[in-house]
């Protein structure tokens, strides 16, 4: 009964030959349709935020100017969709979780840092989005001089609001992601408390007034 086995091998060989002759474009398209593991559809998110008190000592090193900075290894850099801190603006009644990335799950549960910007401490622009009907509804009360606190597991950062402005969502001059100074921009849809989706955004610009920088040379 060796013949059926030879037949089977022959059939499989022909089948593989046909698959091998399939155009590469189809094969590569098929490759993108399948992955090595099952897709995770969970809407749960990871939370790495552990509040630090003012008195807590974070691992520090001296930078080239002799100032203390947070040791890069002491910072667990958040991946996309992870809650890593919270935003507090007492004057606006805002106190919400802060996520890395501004996807649906993040903005349904708090505010989100735009993935192409910096997280606090890295000496650049931190751009944070939130919905105007939920967590950032209080931004309608934002005024110059108010204090914004961002708490993370590696330290707390205080900012002072410099100005607020209503601009078009597509106006790229509204933010400078290549700024070399630590600054914070919060934004949300505008106007508030209305039904509808508009192309206007309220931007709240703030400058750092307190908070330790993160060691730069090995920082992510």
């Amino acid at each position, binding site marked *: *009964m060796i*013949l*059926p*086995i*030879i*037949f*089977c091998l*022959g*059939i*499989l060989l*022909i*089948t593989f030959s046909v698959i091998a002759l399939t155009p590469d474009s189809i094969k590569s*398209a098929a490759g*993108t*349709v*399948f*992955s*090595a*593991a*099952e*897709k995770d*559809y969970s809407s749960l998110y990871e939370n790495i935020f552990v509040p630090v008190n003012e008195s807590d000592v974070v691992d520090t090193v001296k930078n080239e100017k002799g100032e203390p900075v947070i040791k890069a290894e002491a910072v667990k850099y958040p991946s996309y969709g992870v809650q890593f801190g919270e935003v507090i603006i007492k004057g606006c009644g805002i106190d919400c979780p802060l996520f890395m990335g501004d996807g*649906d799950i993040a*903005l*349904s549960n708090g505010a989100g840092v735009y993935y192409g910007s910096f997280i606090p401490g890295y000496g650049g622009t931190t751009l944070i989005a939130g*919905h*105007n*009907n*939920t967590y950032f509804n209080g931004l309608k009360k934002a005024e110059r001089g108010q204090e914004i606190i961002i708490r993370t597991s590696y330290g707390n950062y205080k900012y002072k609001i410099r100005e607020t402005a209503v601009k078009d969502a597509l106006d790229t001059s509204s933010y400078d992601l290549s700024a070399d100074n630590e600054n914070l921009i919060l934004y949300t*849809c505008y*106007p508030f*408390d*209305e*039904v*509808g*989706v*508009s*192309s206007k955004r309220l931007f709240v610009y703030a400058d750092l007034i307190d908070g330790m920088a993160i060691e730069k040379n090995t920082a992510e």
Partner: protein
Amino acid sequence: MSKKQTKKNIRNVVFCVLSFILALFLFVNSVCMLSVAFFLNENAWIDQMNSSNYFTDKADEIKNKLVFLGNAGGLPPEFFENVVDPIQVANDTQTYMDAYFNGRTAGVDGTAFKRKFSSELDRYITENNAKYDDNNKEYLVDNAVLIYTNGLEIPLFYKLSELFAELKGVMPFVIAGLGAGMAAIVLVLFFCNKWKHRTFKYYCYSCAGAFLSLLAVSIYMSVAGGLKNIVLESRALYDTAVSFGTSISIALWILTAFFLIIALLMYVIYSNKIRKVSATD
């Protein structure tokens, strides 16, 4: 080697080749029939969608996306409770798939949804005396319709549409052609063998060859977990695809079992016939 022996050997080789071709045809025909029964059968898609609760899950999925839009558009989650109707989802999906299986590439028709969403929105605005701007309201409705129509679209369908239509037209001829080829081989094996036990031996080889080939494919499908590793953004569609994969896997095992039974049957007939021949001798 005598001339008679050489002739016998050549005849054996020819019959072996014929039974291999028969096994190949049986295998290819099985694959073609599975394609017609599943991939090229719109009803099979709809059945799988029904059995995997696709329409309800899809309605929930769209509703959740609309809730995200509501967060930006000033609408509470409760507003969306009755906006997406699974029956409407089923109807729009059916229309969408009808078009694709007939070779057209029209998108999902969101007219009925737009009508319902707009009327619910107007009712909400009136009941809550909510402030709104006409342009922003229209933009909200357009965004909601986009979420709905995008949500019902099936990835790559627009690319597969022409292929579906072409294969649907060609496949009956392929199956009929393979059937005719198989019938011819069966008849050749039957009438060209003086001793009928040999005929059933070759039939047995063919069926066993097809059985082993299908067994290999079935085992591969089962070990790979069907379509469990397919990458789809929609959970509802993923569940349908997995259900589809499981059904195909089951159909493959049934076909495998069918060929095993036929192969065994042919072997039993062959054994009986050769016993009779031996008894006659």
